[in-house]
């Protein structure tokens, strides 16, 4: 074979391979662009869906407070509200799996017309409150418990703390605030003639806006063994300003209940054997309902918040690609974080 033919063969092979490479690269580039456009469209679609869920009331308007009703159209907005992004306390409560009247995922999926798109909902206070028991000391007839309270807000923000300690039928309230390093100290005294599980309910309110009120509940032992986890003896459901308790054991006896918020406290008024009225108060604060009782000879204190916040409702999107939309919403005058996550749109 002449040398010229070999040269031409190599030359042509080079040109063809380069042309193939260029075509492949161009096709890849175009495919990425098309995918990017599809992602943009998908994101816009899901953003509209999230906005609709947060700003529409659903059908019927009062599906949240009507415990026997599942909505035909899903929306969380409060009926008749003039505040932007105000959601209904009962609609949120019905997303909590702890609530007796909770909606199922299929109810929500059907009512929201998700069409196979996975949905996850989470609601939490605007900021976190952390409590740590740092010591206790017996002084006379009382035991003094010292707690350290911190929040996830910037340390420059002064946070006012309103705390309630409950043990058996005894309750004491204490006020405090965080210092410049963002940490507050609280001391509560419990009488030594009581013994059993105790709870410390902490409300934290940011100084610049009273709607920024968060809470946490800390269980500790008062001259007794470690308390059982919450919801061991009772199933508590808060809906339509009524608290319902359901005993989980035969020997459970409920003694009394308390309504606690940042500015108010009161005893719960019994409506029937296992239902109580939740008072309506003008306080931009979540409410904590504490029920005290006995299981045989063992005392317990169990609690539920109102709104009954769903840590996580719906699909678990932990290990898959999801589009997240976060909102700051108002529930009964207080601000909360509401997160909506959607899975991928089925192809």
């Amino acid at each position, binding site marked *: 074979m002449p*040398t*010229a033919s070999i040269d031409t063969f190599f030359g042509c092979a*080079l040109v063809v391979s380069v042309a193939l490479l260029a075509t492949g690269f161009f096709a890849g580039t175009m495919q990425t662009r098309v995918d990017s456009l599809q992602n943009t469209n998908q994101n816009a679609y899901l953003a509209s869906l999230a906005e609709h869920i947060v700003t529409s009331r659903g059908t019927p308007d009062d599906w949240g407070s009507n415990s026997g009703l599942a909505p035909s159209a899903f929306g969380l907005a409060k009926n008749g509200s003039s505040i932007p992004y105000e959601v209904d306390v009962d609609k949120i409560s019905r997303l909590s799996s702890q609530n007796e009247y909770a909606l199922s995922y299929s109810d929500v999926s059907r009512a929201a017309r998700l069409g196979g798109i996975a949905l996850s909902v989470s609601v939490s206070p605007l900021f976190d409150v952390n409590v740590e028991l740092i010591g206790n000391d017996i002084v006379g007839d009382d035991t003094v418990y010292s707690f350290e309270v911190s929040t996830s807000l910037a340390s420059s923000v002064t946070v006012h703390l309103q705390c309630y300690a409950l043990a058996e039928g005894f309750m004491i309230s204490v006020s405090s605030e965080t210092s410049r390093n963002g940490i507050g100290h609280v001391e509560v005294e419990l009488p030594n003639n009581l013994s059993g599980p105790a709870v410390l309910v902490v409300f934290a309110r940011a100084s610049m*806006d009273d*709607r*920024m009120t968060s809470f946490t509940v800390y269980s500790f032992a008062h001259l007794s063994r470690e308390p059982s986890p919450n919801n061991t003896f009772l199933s508590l459901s808060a809906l339509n300003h009524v608290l319902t308790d359901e005993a989980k054991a035969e020997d459970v006896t409920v003694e009394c209940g308390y309504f606690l918020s940042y500015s108010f406290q009161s005893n719960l008024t019994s409506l029937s054997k296992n239902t109580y009225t939740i008072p309506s108060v003008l306080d931009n604060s979540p409410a904590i309902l504490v029920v005290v009782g006995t299981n045989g000879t063992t005392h317990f204190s169990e609690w539920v918040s109102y709104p009954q916040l769903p840590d996580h409702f719906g699909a678990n999107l932990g290990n898959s690609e999801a589009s997240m*939309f976060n909102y700051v919403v108002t529930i009964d005058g207080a601000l909360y974080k509401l997160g909506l996550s959607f899975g991928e749109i089925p192809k």
Partner: protein
Amino acid sequence: MRLINDRKGNVRVVEALLASLLLLSSLTLIPVAQKHSDTPAETLALTATQVLLSLNGDGHLSSLIDLRDWEAIRSCVQSCFPLSVWFNLTVFDENMACLNPVSISTGSLICENTASVDTVIASVNSTFSVYVVRLQVGRLG
């Protein structure tokens, strides 16, 4: 004669190489596709608008502007965003004159993916002052 043919072959190889280089260099002219961002600017803008509307839901934000309490405004906005979000807020009057003499932000901008929204809010006091609030947000990292 054979030597001349060999040289012609070398020249063709050089031509082919040059043509290849020309084609390869033309590939650099093709713009690189935009990488899809996890938090597109539209989502950031939506969140920023929503936060401003919620903060001013009961007229609280406009009250803080009336009081010229820029530190409280910064704390309020900061509390509504996660730490991974950068923001810069500017308050204008109805003539678009800047009212805040200090920066209301979480520091210098160190992210590329940003969005900016303007919202008009009215004071709830008797003067009904009108403010234009510009909130720029970006996701860090």
